[in-house]
């Protein structure tokens, strides 16, 4: 009680430096928690993001590129594969479902993906499949109709009944507009998956877009595959990747993304190191702030000692004060964490369609504040030792 009173009064007396130091702790703590949480959530979300599919079949190339293209709608397709390959895998007894995708066009930077309407019936998460917003319907094969992901629809300002003319290529080039006009017939409800950023059109529509090579009109960019059993994945891996040399079978999808994160493990380590360095600098600020105030406090400490406070009491008061500054900073750090995560989430969503949840529980939200408070208390030890050594007699009134 007494200790806490001493700490509270001291914090009030040195309000400005305490607040500035707490802000530093808040920034450091917010950054530390954000780095960890974004890292964990991004890893968990990207490696867990399969859209309900087990594998992707595509042209010979890198498995990661195939997954990024077909599942995350990023990157270019490594090439096309004949429609017969789609028919072959879809009729394989080990395959429960196979849906072809065709890419190659965009509208104002948002990717057009040609596919079959069966895709929308697949559960992209267990028990959850795509749903249309009220007033919409799925496109019909053979018509120039489009169904938009929720994010793309909102960003493009398109709604059922609106029309647009796609552009050639995956990147927006105003000079490469097609003549074909598409009508929006439906908008999907948000799925928090990369599909939210896609403009879905009939497979044949993309294949036969004006200006596309008629010789490859039946080719597809990739085939999404759902397997009947995990063993089937090994069989098809053997068939396409080891025995064959024309196609690539990316299976399992999560492993490809995990490999990607592993490749950037060093970047994670650098980020974590920077976050820890910032935390250490903030702890240094606690130390400097308290240490510099010790001369001004010498008399107060001597008075406390003259009143009977033991050395360990004044030592504990300074350490507790440092820990309190850190604790106050970490309370504010949650706000900074939410702001950073909301910003990062918006950027990641805009770029990939994947949504991070700033409010998702994460162990870092518990251990980082404890670590920062511990670090703050540790930083308080040096000034506390100075307080501990305060000479009472010489710090009180001049002798007579």
């Amino acid at each position, binding site marked *: 009680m007494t200790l806490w*009173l001493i700490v509270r*009064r001291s914090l009030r007396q040195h309000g400005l430096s305490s607040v500035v130091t707490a802000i530093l702790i808040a920034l450091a703590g917010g950054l530390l928690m954000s780095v960890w949480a974004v890292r964990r959530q991004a890893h968990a979300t990207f490696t867990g993001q399969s859209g309900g599919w087990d594998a992707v079949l595509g042209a010979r190339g890198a498995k990661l590129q195939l997954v990024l293209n077909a599942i995350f709608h990023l990157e270019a397709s490594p090439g096309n594969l004949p429609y017969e390959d789609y028919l072959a895998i879809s009729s394989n007894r080990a395959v429960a479902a196979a849906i072809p995708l065709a890419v190659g066009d965009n509208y104002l930077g948002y990717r057009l993906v040609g596919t079959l309407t069966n895709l929308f019936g697949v559960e992209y998460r267990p028990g959850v499949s795509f749903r249309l917003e009220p007033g919409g319907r799925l496109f019909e094969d053979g018509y120039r109709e489009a169904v938009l992901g929720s994010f793309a629809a909102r960003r493009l300002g398109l709604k059922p009944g609106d029309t647009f003319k796609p552009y050639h290529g995956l990147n927006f080039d105003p000079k490469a507009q097609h003549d074909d006009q598409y009508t929006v017939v439906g908008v999907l409800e948000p799925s928090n998956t990369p599909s939210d950023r896609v403009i879905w059109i009939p497979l044949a529509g993309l294949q036969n877009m004006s200006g596309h090579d008629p010789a490859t009109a039946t080719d597809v960019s990739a085939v999404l595959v759902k397997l009947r059993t995990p063993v089937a994945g090994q069989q098809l891996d053997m068939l396409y990747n080891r025995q064959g040399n024309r196609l690539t079978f990316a299976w399992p999808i999560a492993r490809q993304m995990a490999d990607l994160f592993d490749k950037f493990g060093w970047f994670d380590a650098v980020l974590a190191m920077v976050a820890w360095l910032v935390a250490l600098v903030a702890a240094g600020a606690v130390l400097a702030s308290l240490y510099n105030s010790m001369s001004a406090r010498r008399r107060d400490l001597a008075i*406390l000692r*003259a*009143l009977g406070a033991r050395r360990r009491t004044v030592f504990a008061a300074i350490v507790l004060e440092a820990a309190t500054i850190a604790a106050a900073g970490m309370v504010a750090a949650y706000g900074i964490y939410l702001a950073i995560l909301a910003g990062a989430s918006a950027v990641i969503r805009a770029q990939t369609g994947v949504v991070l949840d700033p409010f998702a529980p994460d162990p870092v939200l518990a251990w980082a504040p404890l670590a920062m408070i511990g670090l703050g208390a540790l930083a308080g030890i040096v000034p506390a030792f100075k307080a501990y050594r305060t000479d*009472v*007699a010489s710090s009180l009134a001049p*002798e*007579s």
Partner: protein
Amino acid sequence: MALLEITDLRKSYRAPDGTCHEVVSIPRFTLESKVQLALSGASGSGKTTFLHLIAGILTPDSGRIELDGRLMSALPEASRDRLRAADIGYIFQTFNLLQGFTVLENVLLGMSFGPGADRGRAASLLERVGLSHRLHHFPRQLSTGQQQRVAVARALAHRPKLVLADEPTGNLDTANAREALALIRETCSENEAALLLVSHDPAVLDGFSQRLPLTELNRAANTPVTGGAR
């Protein structure tokens, strides 16, 4: 048995030029319970050092200080702190109030290291010294005389057996000094605490029936001596 018994007490300081100066050399001194005694002495006569030694803030080079039957001079620092917090009240010339704490908190702190904070007693003591309307003011918001009254209340808050007062009126004008001195003496009597007051002011000393020149007590000449200074 006397409340305070001092035998062969010595204290010297090392000056910046390396020489040792003995400032306290008291062969024998006693103070009975509830007695009020004034010691007179000029500046530099070792008054504050003597009180600091009694309070356990300083340790003597040699000699014995016995307070209420406990050999204070032989106790480790933490025990002396405990003893001071429990049995000794200290009134300083410059009041030494904690500026960041309210009047009430200053008094509560005077108790909290000893018997424990007692809000009721702190408030009643402040009422006794005429500051019941200033409980939540800060020292800087008080007049000098009011600050000294807070210091008096703080010194008596934990019901000490002995109150040490070091030039308690040194910073006050004549009227406030007279008032403060009367208050110190009255409150010490009411709380059955012995009072050992040191001052160089004849106006203060004249009011005490028991008074003693420190020079009679202290044989230290404050001249360089040989030997280990602390």
